[in-house]
């Protein structure tokens, strides 16, 4: 903006005639910044408008303090423990978190508003222009740097001592492999256990029950009789083995359904070869683990005999081998072959005949 740009050497910072803003401008100039427009908001001090802004600002900052204090007071004094205290305490409790949010929100908001108002209304109006220095470096610079880099190769003498270089590489490669081996090797775990692919077996395999067929049980481990499920009812059952209802056997939850007479007949009639003999009278048991993404597909509609998975809306037709009829699932829910043992409790005659849960590469 000034027509005369003194060079850095000419400038005398100790010149007493320079104002502070002159120094600021000179500093900015040296940083490639021109302050082209700079005007105080209130050239005349003490106008009504200025006092109004000051009042607003003071109010905002005092509000910040007030709300901050309110937050701390509420934090300490407001009832905050679930299910404790007398009726007043209980009535106030649900508002503990909202009160914290409201006070802290207002505290920070008024502080933020105050700072912004200060900057918008009281800081001088300013337009500054800074030069950019884009584009590639000077071509000489490029050449010099390139030479420096290339010289490193020369200094190491890789061309002359080729064998040393190769030996270094041969030595460094295993060192790199050490890092990889530690990471991969410590984490890697084959999908097999006792020689079997874990994705092919569930808790219903008799081997988890000393070779005896596994009972269908409630979550608490009590076995289930046919009389425990009404017609049109369904129940989530777990393998009757130790910890059978825990997440250790996350692939085993099964849905036992008591179909209506005619639905059961239809199911039996439509059963494909794999599922022959899996049904016991009017009872069928299907894996609860969706074949799509593994959510529990358990929204059973007892009239339409559809089973819906709430995660991605796959729908399975129970009366037709639990075949997928809608949504992204491509495979039927595996059927658990069940019967009733001598004591009148449901048992699984064997493990699922096909892998349960989401599909994977090796799945037949």
């Amino acid at each position, binding site marked *: 903006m000034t027509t005369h740009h003194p060079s850095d050497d000419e400038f005398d910072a100790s010149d007493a005639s320079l104002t502070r803003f002159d120094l600021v401008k000179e500093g900015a100039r040296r940083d490639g910044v021109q302050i082209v427009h700079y005007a105080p908001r209130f050239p005349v001090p003490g106008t009504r408008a200025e006092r109004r802004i000051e009042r607003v600002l003071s109010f905002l900052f005092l509000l910040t303090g007030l709300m901050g204090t309110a937050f701390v007071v509420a934090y300490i004094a407001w009832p905050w423990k679930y299910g404790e205290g007398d009726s007043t305490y209980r009535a106030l409790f*649900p508002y503990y978190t909202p009160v914290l949010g409201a006070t802290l929100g207002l505290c920070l908001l008024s502080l933020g508003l105050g700072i912004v108002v200060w900057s918008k209304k009281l800081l001088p109006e300013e337009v500054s222009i800074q030069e950019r220095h884009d584009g590639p470096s000077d071509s000489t610079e490029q050449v010099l740097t390139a030479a420096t880099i290339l010289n490193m190769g020369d200094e190491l003498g890789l061309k002359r001592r080729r064998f040393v270089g190769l030996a270094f590489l041969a030595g460094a490669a295993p060192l790199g492999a050490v890092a990889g081996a530690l990471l991969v090797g410590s984490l890697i775990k084959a999908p097999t256990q006792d020689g079997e692919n874990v994705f092919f077996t569930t808790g219903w395999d008799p081997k988890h029950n000393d070779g005896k067929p596994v009972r269908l049980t409630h979550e608490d481990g009590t076995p289930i009789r046919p009389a425990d499920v009404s017609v049109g009812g369904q129940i989530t059952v777990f393998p009757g083995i130790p910890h059978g209802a825990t997440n250790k056997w996350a692939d085993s939850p099964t849905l036992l359904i008591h179909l209506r007479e005619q639905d059961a007949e239809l199911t039996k009639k439509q059963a494909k070869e794999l599922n022959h003999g899996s049904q016991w009278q009017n009872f069928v048991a299907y894996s609860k683990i969706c074949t799509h993404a593994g959510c529990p597909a358990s929204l059973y509609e*007892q009239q339409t005999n559809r089973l819906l998975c709430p995660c991605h809306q796959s729908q399975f037709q129970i009366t037709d081998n639990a075949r997928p009829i809608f949504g992204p699932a491509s495979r039927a829910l595996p059927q658990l072959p069940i019967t009733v043992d001598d004591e009148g409790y449901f048992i699984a005659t064997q493990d699922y005949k096909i892998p349960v849960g989401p599909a994977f590469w090796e799945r037949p």
Partner: protein
Amino acid sequence: MTSEQSKRPLARLVPGGARAARGKLRRRLSAAVRLVAALTLAGGLYTAYAPGVGRAEETVKLSDAAANGKAIYEVSCITCHGRNAQGVENRGPSLIGVGSAAVEFQVNTGRMPLARQEAQAERKTPQFDESQAAELGAYIQELGGGPQLPSAESLDEQVKQARGSDKILAHGGELYRVNCSSCHAFSTGGGALSSGKFAPSLQHSTNRDIYAAMLTGPQNMPVFGNNQLSPDDKAAIIAYIQDLNKNEAADPGGWALGRYGPVPEGLVIFLVGIAALVFATLWIAGKS
């Protein structure tokens, strides 16, 4: 029973009438006349026999409540569920054996009488009061038996006690999550089922509504009979549901957004968070 009786005479008599008028020449000419005659006869026989059937039925002693219920039934329910609750093909199922529990649930929640055929009957303002529903229930109960509800007072008392016990409440919660939440959601707000059907919200359900729904499995809801979930289990589940719905402390984190989960949370972050902050940016960067 009744339909069998009213059909049999028709089957015997109408062909008989036609046989008497058989003649080669007159057959075609009188076809229309015979049809009208047959229809008149059938209609006449039906009206003649039907009250007789009704009389025969009345010989089964109905209690006063059931008799009142029958009167309501024959005005409001008979169109779809048929005479004596036998059901009408493609219109309404037979009510024999559903028990008073199902009737009281359907009527007290306003689902029955049905306004129109939809994917699923919706909760609406009930058309009958609770005593009328109880009378209807008594009638159906005496016709065909079936599950019955405990009295409202005893159930409410049991639920109240269950809510007072942490242990029972927690037990109800576990049962709820494994049996109910898949359709009615963790929040008890309900959820969608296939093809327009849905599991309704439980947030306005009474104790008895919930009890009856579990006991009878209305529409597509599976049946949770007393053999599967004992009355105590049911009371525990109801206690858990009512505790979530009526205990204000269940939502200590502010407005629960209907407890619909991440969908409204995502809406809030854009409609409240981002929207307000964009307004702030407009103000901050605006000319002062």
